């Protein structure tokens, strides 16, 4: 089988279509990086503007409250106390925001963190006191405070999680933003024609006339294609990880991110944010790897099955992409699918969202866990390989 696998590698890297797909993959990541870097630069300005805006708003409200206070009759002590408390609160908010703005300008992130904690605690206190419904979830606020305290305690510089291009955050962001769709397209391009291409070119006649069992031919292709897909995707990500580490910094592997405690169970363990705990981003990426690798293996297996059934490589590639995108859209948009989403391999494409429990909220399906994902991907891979082998062993090569 070794010469067959080696030959598959050779064919892959001599095929222009594959080289172009790799180039486009790298290019898209570069575009994402450029967009994130420009967003990160703008973020500081936006935050300063936000602080200024809040300060200005506070000033106006303080002035208004002060004038109301002066107009209020001295005998209305309750009303005057209420207004005074409001003025004090707004003054505190104004002061904190002014200090935060100065901390951002002077790049003093420790001070900024401290102020963020104070502001969040102040907001939380307000929420608890007024008992009013707010746009911000108090549980999320508690988690935010926890995270900021952790950063401060461990002397970790905070990052803009939605756009920071430190190495660790890049891996997390890419896995959410471009990897799911790109995995579908790139694996379809790489693997959907691995069998049908031989049919198109008439080379099956050379390959299958050799004294090697058809099962061996199929499994050589499966092994080669899987190894190629895993190595290209992981090596590209690793290359960018190192590159960004050198240019933008690696970031701390201890940087806290949300992790769903029920990941290693078959169902939902908690009822609220209690089921989420903070773990280091390095550890989080390590947890992501098995699911990501298994996802690549499963997608490759599905593509090879399609390639075994189809006789024409263009049809096979188009069919794979079409099937994947249709299932992906159906899965995300149609409620009936959401109930069985945990049994559909493509549900687990957004690997970080599976690990942090977001998928459970998104689909309203409590079975979407890391453990269930691993099992579904392994089972679907086995089924695809079994069907591919059964078809290929008895397939007439008509071309």
């Amino acid at each position, binding site marked *: 089988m070794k010469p067959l696998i080696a030959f598959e590698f050779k*064919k892959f890297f*001599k*095929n222009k279509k594959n080289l172009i797909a790799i180039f486009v993959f790298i290019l898209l990541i570069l575009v994402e990086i450029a967009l994130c870097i420009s967003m990160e630069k703008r973020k500081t300005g936006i935050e300063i503007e936000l602080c200024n805006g809040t300060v200005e708003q506070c000033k106006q409200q303080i002035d208004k409250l002060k004038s109301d206070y002066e107009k209020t009759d001295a005998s209305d002590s309750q009303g005057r106390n209420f207004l005074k408390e409001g003025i004090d609160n707004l003054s505190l908010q104004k002061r904190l925001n002014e200090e935060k703005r100065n901390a951002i300008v002077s790049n003093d992130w420790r001070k900024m963190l401290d102020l963020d904690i104070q502001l969040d605690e102040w907001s939380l206190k307000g929420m608890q006191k007024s008992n009013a419904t707010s746009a911000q979830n108090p549980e999320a606020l508690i988690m935010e405070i926890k995270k900021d305290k952790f950063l401060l305690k461990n002397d970790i510089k905070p990052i803009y999680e939605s756009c920071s291009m430190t190495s660790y955050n890049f891996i997390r962001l890419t896995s959410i933003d471009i990897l799911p769709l790109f995995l579908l397209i790139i694996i379809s391009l790489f693997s959907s024609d691995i069998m049908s291409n031989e049919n198109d070119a008439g080379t*099956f*006649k050379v390959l*299958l006339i050799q*004294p090697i069992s058809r099962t061996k031919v199929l499994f050589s292709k499966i092994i080669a294609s899987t190894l190629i897909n895993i190595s290209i995707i992981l090596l590209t990500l690793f290359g960018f990880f190192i590159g960004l580490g050198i240019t933008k910094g690696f970031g701390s592997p201890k940087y806290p991110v949300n992790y769903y405690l029920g990941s290693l169970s078959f169902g939902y363990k908690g009822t609220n944010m209690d089921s989420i705990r903070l773990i280091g981003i390095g550890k989080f990426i390590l947890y992501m790897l098995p699911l990501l690798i298994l996802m690549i293996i499963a997608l490759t297996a599905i593509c090879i099955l399609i390639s075994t059934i189809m006789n024409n490589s263009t049809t096979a590639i188009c069919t794979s992409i079409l099937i994947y995108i249709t299932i992906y859209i159906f899965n995300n948009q149609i409620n009936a699918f959401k109930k069985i989403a945990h049994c559909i391999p493509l549900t687990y494409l957004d690997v970080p969202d599976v690990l942090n429990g977001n998928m459970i909220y998104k689909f309203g399906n409590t079975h979407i866990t890391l453990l269930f994902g691993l099992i579904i991907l392994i089972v679907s891979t086995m089924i695809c390989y079994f069907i591919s082998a059964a078809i290929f062993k008895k397939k007439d*090569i008509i071309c």
Partner: protein
Amino acid sequence: MSILEMKNISKKFGNRQVLKNISFSIEEGEVVGFVGSNGAGKTTTLKVLANLIFPDEGTVVINGHNLFSEREEALSCIGGIIENPGLYSFLSGRDNLNFIKNLRNVSDEKMDSIIEYIGLSSRINDTVKNYSLGMKQRLALGMSLLTDPKLLILDEPTNGLDPTGTIELRNLLKKLSKENKISVLISSHILSEIDKISDKVVFIKEGEIISIKDNKRVTNGQPYKMNVNEAEKVKELLKNCENVYEFYFDNENVLYVNIANDSLNSLLKSFVLNNIDFSNIEVVSGVEEEYDKIYSKGALK
């Protein structure tokens, strides 16, 4: 010793019966021509032999190994080009040969000798897509010969070859069969080529083997076509002639006759003596004659 024994092979594609009870054998060192019109089932038969198509019924034994139960052993004895040279066009000629070499543990020396043998030494590192059809045919033949097959299956191997290439291929196949004892099953539309090269010719029509002709005898004799009157009288006369190998009538008065070399004069003399009129005497190729017989009216022997 039989290198190939094909027994009662039948195959249906949907409702269409493409092969019906195909049976024939090939001996060691024998060159067998496989002749039939387009769609007769030639390529399907060859694909069954190469295990590319699975028959519904029948057995194929190659060098003593059943193709369906001992696939690897059986396929290790064959090489071939089916339909067109199946080559990886984006790789070089050497890469294509290297693939078979690595797969079948062939030595470097053997590969170099094959490259020289097929006359591609100067272009072997070029990408195959830049090759002419003739060069592709030669490369595919080289890939087939790399593993010293006992049976070579060639489907239309002269396609794309110039006259020199065709003559070279003919001589090569003769050499392989006589010197290396390689059996060859060759299908072609060029009947004269089949006639020149084959020891035996298998004729297929609508998925059925219509005739298997021993071409050694045909090549020893000389077939003629002529117009005669009194067919019954001619039949009686020819039955008793020593030098007549076989004969049949296409029309009532069109006679095909295969006679020993240099015996045309004595045959014509006997016609004159028996008051049989004859005209339009033509020399006919043996295979062509049989082909004409099968695809026009059918045998009347």
